[in-house]
């Protein structure tokens, strides 16, 4: 059974370290200084921190059972990885038509217009044991858990 990122908004302090580590993890250097230096021009975090007064949380792709983005994708870029079961965007195939942005009920996909135009979304740090945002959340506001079909963490 695949794992998902679970959001605990009552623990989130809005520090945005998740954004920083997401960006570093998806850089080619994996180095915070280089990622925020030369590489910054085409990188953006693949999650969104929402904040309203005292309430905040970090939102990544929800890994829907029946992903609307896959259904709507006209290029075939958005797909469920056959090995891991993770919903990911093949950035070599994506043309940036934004159909996925139109249908994602969580608003978890963003336009990345910094380099080649692509739909930018969480890939659960493909292949990593623990996604960078979860690993680096100081307050356990994000956890990585096996979740059953109804969405309940076990």
């Amino acid at each position: 059974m695949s794992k998902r990122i679970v959001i605990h908004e009552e623990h989130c302090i809005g520090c945005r370290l998740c954004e920083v580590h997401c960006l570093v993890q998806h850089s080619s250097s994996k180095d915070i200084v280089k990622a925020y230096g030369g590489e910054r021009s085409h990188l953006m975090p693949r999650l969104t921190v929402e904040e309203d007064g005292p309430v905040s949380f970090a939102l990544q792709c929800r890994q829907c059972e029946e992903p609307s983005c896959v259904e709507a994708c006209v290029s075939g870029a958005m797909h469920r990885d056959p090995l891991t079961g993770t919903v990911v965007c093949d950035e070599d195939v994506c043309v940036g038509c934004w159909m996925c942005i139109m249908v994602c009920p969580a608003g978890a996909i963003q336009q990345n217009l910094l380099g080649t135009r692509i739909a930018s979304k969480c890939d659960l740090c493909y292949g990593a044991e623990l996604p960078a945002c979860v690993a680096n959340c100081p307050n356990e506001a994000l956890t990585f858990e096996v979740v059953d079909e109804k969405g309940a963490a076990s």
Partner: protein
Amino acid sequence: MRAVIIGNSATAVGAIEALRAVDQRAEVLVVSEESHLIYSRPLLSHYLGGEIACSRLAYRPSDFYTRHDVTPLLETKATGIDVEGHRVLTANGAPIAYDKLLVATGGVPIVPPTPGIDTQGVFTFTRRSDVEGILAHLEKHGGSRAVVVGGGMIGIKATDALLKRGVHVTMIELAPRILGAALDSAASRLMTNLLTEAGVDVLTGNTITEIQSRDGRVCGVALREGAPIPADLIIFGIGVRPNTQVVQGTEVQVNRGIVVDEYMRTSAPDIYAAGDVAEAYDLVVDMNRTVAIWPNAYRQGAIAGAHMVGVETPDEGGVAMNAIEVHGVPAISVGNSNLEDEPGHEFLTDLDERAHRYKRLVLKDNRLVGAILVGRINRAGIYTGLIRHKIDVGASRAALMSEQFGLLSLPDRYRKHVVTGEGIEV
């Protein structure tokens, strides 16, 4: 069990993937008039515009058929159905027997009868062969001036692609405004301005009455109003009508499209229809109608494919929607987005004409029924979700139009549903 699918696009893929997810034994045949493996029609404009190579038109990897154990019968035109005998009749001769049949024949381009229509240099814009023809024509004869007939989605996509090729375009739309099926007058005006800024001549409330030729090739068009326009190329991008030809003369019930139930079953036994050819349920207008869009085609195909092998997942209905781009500015429309001054509806708008930015929400009984976003489109899907799930947004009304609009603006219970699914506390 042998499942036969007529058609080879999004609906076919949806059906194949859903069928194979639960069944490895059924024999699956895909019958297609075209000679290509599965490609993406919406990407044709990107190909025409030179943004992608023709190899990137593929909608699934090249091993798709083998991996899903599907037999493609390409260059095979289905001409009719023997409902009683459970056979598909083909132009090549040999009929194809089926146990379950999915009609996924899509749409055919609407081309109004016009004198000179057969002239060289006149094209439609729905198939790969159309684009190959346009590219060959441009290469052979050059061509710096095109006329695009139709100011809807297809016409806009063709125009945007031709602009990228450096071709001057005159767009001719019969209705008083472009994109009238999706956009209200303000959004339509924004898109018209964008086209004009890109150098397009947009003529509305007009139509072509004759295609003029010289040496057998297009040289211009005559208009209902105004002087003729010189042109090297004409593209009909008016839209499509359901391609119901294969069921003509059978008991399969057809209105505008083929009438289907929530499992995409037609009125004839063992025959399904899905995608642009089908008249399926639209949950915003609360009736069955044809809506020729990719996500509906895929989803309906999946419902039909699953049902063929005994998995009953009823369709909850589709929502009309589209994403387009003109001159680098994206626009998204969802649901009943083009309504104006409709009694019982409320309209929230935020327009910045100079920045090419617009947001418009249509509400009815405290529920969102339509949305338009131009320029800034991030998080558009949250609105789509609210429309699809008919969420009462009365308490969140002010936040709906905020630039910070996000899940935090939503009713708690719906937010938890979106973020985590049921049964877990955020």
